[in-house]
């Protein structure tokens, strides 16, 4: 059976997996880091060729 989160407060949204705040933050940080890399790669590629095309 699932167990309650140890530090949950009344009315506070709970995750079924009982995951802690520090882990949540680490997950979000890693996800944003990877997403930023993908966006940078995408925009950078287009921008690089756009700027290069200006060199003639």
């Amino acid at each position: 059976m699932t167990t309650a989160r140890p530090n949950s407060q009344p009315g506070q949204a709970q995750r079924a997996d009982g995951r802690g705040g520090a882990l949540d933050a680490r997950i979000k940080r890693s996800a944003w880091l990877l997403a930023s890399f993908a966006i940078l790669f995408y925009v950078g590629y287009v921008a690089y060729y756009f700027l290069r095309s200006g060199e003639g």
Partner: protein
Amino acid sequence: MSTTAFDTHGHDQAHGQKPTGLVPWILRWVTTTNHKDIGTLYLLFSLLMLFVGGGMAMLIRAELLQPGLQFLNPVRFNQMTTVHALIMVFGMIMPAFAGFANWMVPLQIGAPDMALPRLNNWSFWLLPFASTLLILTLFLPGGAPAGGWTMYPPLVLQTGDAFPFLIFAVHLLGVSSILAAINIIVTIMNLRAPGMSLLKMPMFTWTWLITAYLLLLAMPVLAGGVTMLLTDRFFGTSFFSAAGGGDPVLFQHIFWFFGHPEVYVIILPAFGIISEVIPTFSRKPLFGYAAMVYATASIAFLSLVVWAHHMFTVGMPLAGQLFFMLTTMIIAVPTGVKVFNWTATLWKGSLSFETPMLFALAFLFLFTLGGFSGLMLAIVPADIQYHDTYFVVAHFHYVLVPGALFGAFAGTYYWLPKWTGHMYDEKLGKLHFWLTVIFVNVTFFPQHFLGLAGMPRRIPDYSPQFADFNFISSLGAFGLGAAQLIFVYVIIKCARGGPKATAQVWEGAHGLEWTVPSPAPHHTFAEPPEIK
């Protein structure tokens, strides 16, 4: 191996309440954030797309049954080959493996769900819209894109109203893949059960971790390329227009920098499934686990530096030809390590030949055959002869059908009892296997001969000298298509009932996913298991 606790309500009952009525039922599936639900959605969607893309393949082979024009005019024929490829790659095989990842990665690492469940829901639901956009192009004025799945300019820029649909669909498919990749990486790196070090992870999870990184490197490049196509068409840029000072060959470099890793995005998860199935039915641990992990990583790395082997006929300096020829050939080394290790796992094993094992063994033989014809294509002087012939069509279909698709079939039969709680019909599974393996070879093997004899790809009509092998190939394709109806029947029958599956399902199976009951409960590993 572990201690586990489970919430035992069935997985047709999200949070213990069975939805009644159509709208709640639809909402339950549209809003679900459960990894098993989303895995199921991915798998069902890819099965649907298998028949959409397969239907187009049937039309293509019907047209090629005999010389002359039968059913499709040349433009429609080229639209069929283009949309068939895009649907099969982006709509069928990639979502199929994303479905396996959703279902199995959390179960294999002892995680309660994917790390970002709502993002997971979004990754899936982008797919039906993107695929619909792509399929809708068939009904637009000017028809669907017809320049091939490679979307080379300037040909693709001649597409009619379908062009922005194509670009938007590819962007959406790319976003879906990138989000799924981020989710998988973050899940594996953060939610592994205590004690599960990286080198204790199951091979399927390992291959998906590497695949996800590969997706993150390759997909933004494709997105960048198609964005540049869009601005060339609508915003006056000349990235790929020679008249404006651009270079159409630049797009080929961009596309294949994505396109070759894409082949490995498709095949690496299949490697992972085969690495699970062979040890189970050999009743032995996988031979050379660490070597398999390093070989997978090496293949992924090398796949990023071989792209121009698709472009030998474009013209490039000799040093470039040699570099891309040699790096392509070097991929055979880690791939050879994998084939050797699978064979060594079989060696002196206590083998049994259930349907997943049959598909895995056929994968071993036929994927290797596809690999060998790939080696032939890597040789620059030979490639100049083979380029754009049916030999290439035969090669990549051997890699993608008895390679990737057989991997997906093996995985489905292997984990179906875990998903449904019932054993599938073994007799029908074996019938599906034998018909599929026979017809795959009848379809694609003659295409080697057609290519070597000089038949070009992407043509609706051909010289009468190619008639016999085309006739055989088309008959094989019809048989291959029909055999997949058995697959659908087996899945439906298994989902509806059958002998109860135990938790372990297979006598030789090891790993966390086999410690949970069958069918896997809606919530698993709410408390992480301890790995010793």
